[in-house]
């Protein structure tokens, strides 16, 4: 308790230094929070695309049921297919009507004759998509050309590439910020230690142990870490909650938003653990450097 009191006194007596330390920690953890949102969000988006029917083949109007059955059979024989779902012209119209129920003009224009029947196939592995697509293209029942078979391999690949890029950039930025905040904390706490050199000397002469002198400084570092993290997390979370309605309309159909409160809470706990470690390391470095 005495250590906490001493630590609080150090903070109160140098409010601007405390503010600088809290700000840098806040910035670091704001970046970590945003990064966590992006990584978490993108992994859900990729999973969503991966779980959707990945290859769709559209049939010619004159396609025979036997040809369709033959295609189904040869697809199943590959052993790579997870699900096969046939969508008839009627079902396609139903789906179309459902998607565009708010737009009567679009509904009037389309009849089941226009919409082709299709086969939606998902595979266990994304690598098998090409093979499945090729089998579909080879079927005489499927519409020829680019429009006959569509699949989302490209979307997923692009998303994966983007996510990896974000990860690399994010980790680099966080590493730099963590390094800078550690250095700044070392400087601030080191400055405080040297400011109190005379007092520390007296403490030693009055039988204070090294740890008695060190703990308030280390606790101070932990305090900066905790407060900075909390505000960084708060700003990032508030930003995400504010942006949720806009993002929801952008990411229509993807079960990502609103983010569950448990995710925010887990993120906060995780960040607090990192902050405590970071604060402790920085202040210990300062104390060991200036208080031998």
């Amino acid at each position: 308790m005495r250590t906490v009191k001493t630590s609080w006194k150090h903070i109160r007596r140098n409010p601007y230094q405390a503010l600088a330390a809290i700000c840098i920690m806040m910035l670091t953890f704001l970046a970590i929070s945003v990064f966590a949102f992006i990584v978490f969000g993108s992994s859900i988006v990729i999973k969503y695309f991966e779980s959707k029917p990945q290859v769709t083949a559209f049939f010619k109007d004159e396609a025979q049921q036997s040809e369709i059955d033959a295609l189904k059979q040869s697809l199943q024989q590959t052993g790579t297919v997870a699900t096969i779902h046939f969508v008839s012209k009627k079902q396609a119209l139903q789906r179309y009507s459902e998607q565009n129920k708010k737009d009567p003009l679009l509904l009037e224009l389309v009849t089941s004759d226009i919409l082709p029947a299709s086969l939606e196939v998902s595979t266990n592995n994304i690598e098998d998509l090409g093979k499945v697509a090729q089998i579909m293209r080879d079927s005489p029942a499927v519409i020829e050309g680019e429009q006959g078979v569509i699949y989302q391999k490209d979307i997923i690949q692009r998303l994966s590439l983007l996510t990896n890029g974000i990860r690399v950039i994010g980790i680099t930025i966080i590493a730099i910020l963590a390094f800078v905040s550690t250095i700044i904390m070392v400087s601030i706490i080191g400055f405080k230690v040297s400011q109190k050199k005379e007092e520390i000397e007296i403490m030693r002469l009055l039988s204070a142990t090294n740890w008695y002198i060190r703990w308030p400084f280390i606790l101070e570092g932990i305090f900066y870490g905790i407060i900075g993290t909390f505000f960084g997390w708060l700003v990032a979370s508030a930003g995400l909650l504010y942006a949720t309605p806009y993002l929801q309309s952008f990411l229509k159909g993807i079960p990502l938003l609103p983010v569950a409160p448990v995710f925010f809470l887990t993120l906060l706990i995780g960040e607090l653990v990192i902050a405590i470690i970071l604060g402790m390391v920085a202040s210990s470095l300062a104390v060991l450097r200036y208080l031998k």
Partner: protein
Amino acid sequence: MIKLENVTKQFGAGDTALEDVSFVIDPGEFVFVVGPSGSGKTTLFRLLIREMVPTTGAIHIGDWDIVNLSHKKIPHLRKKIGVVFQDLKLFRDRTIFENVLFPLEVGNMDTKSARKRVEEILELVGIAQHSNKFPVQLSGGELQRAAIARALAFSPEILLADEPTGNLDNATSWEIIKLLQDINATGTTIIMATHNTEVVASLLKRVLTIEKGKLVKDQKQEKKEEK
């Protein structure tokens, strides 16, 4: 018992602060250490509290081998020896009460007992009425008393007082000496460094005279026979 055997302390530049000093002080003694400025009195005190180690020689306090004392044990040694520093070394941003409380806090005494002890000591040294003042608000004599109070916090076996009357007027000096005598009467060993020849001559205590780092005289003063 304090025992110094052939203690020499040299500093980096080759200056010798103490040279081949040996003496023994028994528990409960009151000893003056006299000598001109720079003669090595303060160095002697710093060696006794292991603020520094001698270049050669041995120092024993009770069962403790001070020269070979591990760093971990230094705080324990400093609880046995109270020091009134020449420059007092009071915390300027703490009240007198908090200054005296500090060693007890460090020693992990529970708050209630520690506060009670501080009140007792401040009463003993006669500055209880100033307990909530800061050092800057006190006179020289009161500050000396505060420093003595802090040195007494742990009821030390030994009290080192470095020039405790240095900047005080005659009357206040005698008040401080009287206080030290009272403390000595409770069994505490007192070693007092001083320039004050009047005090030394009047008290008829043992006197260690140090000049240029050497112990030149170790004399027990006797009361002169009145004829």
